[in-house]
């Protein structure tokens, strides 16, 4: 296959017990770039990663990592990848150093070199002080850092990061972003999954949106945002009686209408002029505005725009 792409998925499908998890996924990641696979829980992100990292066989389609087809050349693929899963996959009883040394040995770096590499990585991930303690005593953030370090022992050209920051506190998240940015500078190709638009925006060259097993959009953060609108303005009308009228007036611009909360959301540039224009419109119609909220677009907004429905999580939330 062409050498410009480090990761390629061609029409990949996968079902579990008759349940279609991936339904013809097509995706390409250029060498030395980072692509964020964005999607809610259950969209098929982890399944995609598991297929690419040879842990799972696809039912149909072909997938290539650095030019090697994943099911036929799984061993070659494994020599080219590093994997960091959703759960810190490290040995609890061993110390941080022992974990990294073990990974080095298993990546066939040699005993002495594994020690050296462990030392480098512990320093790089600010784990030197805790290096001799057993991992059981580590905090969540430390475990994740160790986990990521473990996948970098052999410096694979392609790295899969499955929700690397889910469940981390803000400080650890920023530290993780910092590390990922350094990896990008070092020209490692990264496929990262995330539920957070903000994270994809911050880190990725390109974003692919996965929903119910299909890629529904792919592009740079700016291209996606252009579809969603930069900001979202929520206008809350004071009286129920005037709500309908307000909806009529703003109909063309409205992205979302919520009758119970008497709110109308509009995609906007967020400029003062724009807000004034909208408020003037309401005033002319004699509608009293109770409140205004300005939001940055969220994953839900992207979904709403692209699919016309909310994310599964959001729907469940509303149903319950």
């Amino acid at each position, binding site marked *: 296959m062409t050498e410009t792409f480090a990761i390629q998925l061609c029409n990949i499908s996968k079902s579990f017990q008759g349940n279609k998890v991936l339904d013809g996924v097509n995706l390409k990641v250029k060498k030395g770039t980072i692509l964020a696979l964005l999607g809610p829980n259950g969209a098929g992100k*982890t399944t995609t990663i*598991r297929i690419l*990292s*040879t*842990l*799972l066989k696809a039912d149909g389609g072909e997938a290539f990592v650095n030019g090697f087809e994943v099911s036929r050349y799984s*061993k070659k693929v*494994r*020599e080219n*990848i*590093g*994997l960091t*899963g*959703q*759960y*810190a*996959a*490290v*040995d*609890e*009883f*061993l110390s941080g150093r*022992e974990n990294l040394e*073990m990974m080095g*040995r*298993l*990546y*066939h*770096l*040699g005993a002495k*070199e594994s020690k*050296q*590499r462990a030392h*480098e*990585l512990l*320093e*790089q991930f600010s784990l030197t002080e805790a290096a001799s303690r*057993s991992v059981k005593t580590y905090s969540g953030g430390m475990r994740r850092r160790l986990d990521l370090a*473990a*996948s*970098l*022992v*052999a*410096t694979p050209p392609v790295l899969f990061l499955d929700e690397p920051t889910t469940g981390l506190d803000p400080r650890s998240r920023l530290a993780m972003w910092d*590390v990922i940015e*350094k*990896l990008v500078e*070092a020209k*490692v190709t990264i496929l990262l999954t995330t539920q957070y638009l903000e994270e994809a925006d911050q880190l990725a060259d390109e974003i692919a949106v996965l929903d119910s097993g299909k890629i529904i959009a792919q592009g740079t953060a700016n291209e996606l945002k252009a579809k969603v609108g930069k900001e979202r303005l929520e206008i809350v009308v004071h009286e129920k009686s005037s709500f309908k009228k307000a909806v009529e007036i703003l109909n063309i611009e409205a992205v979302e209408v919520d009758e119970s909360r008497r709110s109308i959301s509009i995609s906007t540039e967020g400029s003062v002029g724009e807000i004034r224009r909208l408020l003037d419109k309401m005033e002319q119609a004699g509608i009293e505005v109770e409140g205004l909220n300005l939001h940055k677009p969220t994953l839900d907004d992207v979904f709403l725009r692209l699919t016309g429905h909310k994310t599964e999580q959001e729907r469940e939330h509303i149903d319950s």
Partner: protein
Amino acid sequence: MTYIVGTIQPKKHSQVYWLFSDSWVLIQRSLKHIFKNPDQLLGLTIQPVMFMLLFRYVFGGAISTGGTSYVNFLVAGILVQSVAFGSLTTSLSVATDLQKGLIDRLKSLPIAAWGVMMGHVTADLVRNIIQAIILILVGLLVGFRPLASLLDWVAILGIVLIFTFAISWVAAIMGLLAKSIEAVQWMGFFLVFPLTFASAAFAPTSTMPWALRVFAENQPVTHVIESIRALMNGLPVGNHAFFAVGWCLLITALAIPVATRLFRQHTGR
């Protein structure tokens, strides 16, 4: 200077070299667990010691064992039972590795990842030897007077190792099949409890009802116990050793392919 990206390249050796090297690394890992998790070793040792005291002093007086003293009869039974339960540690370790995602990680490496099971089984061998030595020492304290020669002891060691190896691979299968850590516990209990109690471990089989007796006299654990018991007491082993070793080899020969196959197929969460 950033070390995020390393400069060390993998070494070049033959596949056979790496198979041994990888297995050894994973065995070392499991061996470290024995001493990094002393609670486990302690738990596994205390239980059989309690059983020994219970049977020696509470039930023992009521059980007739013919020529040999009850304590001389008992040690082999307790030893084999504790070894069987000890071998179940592999189930727990394999299930934990699966749950924690460690097996996923190992499978994404260019290695024979089933070596991780080999590691746990080897750790069972070492743990069981430690446990057996402690148990025999306690036995000596409560009146156990073995008549075994040095060669007999070597034979006992051999049987304990072969038996542990067989049960540990079955335990690995249970670890792979278990849906949770809790499931591992009852699965292991379900397998080992009937095999060790419906056996010649604590009482001669001659007083058991017919059906139980047929089972107890022919199942592998009884053969293992009877061989070790005869060796300990300097009595003729008969064909028990033959059946004991035969059973263990058969179980191992069946369990290893099943375990490796399940391991490869395992898709986890």
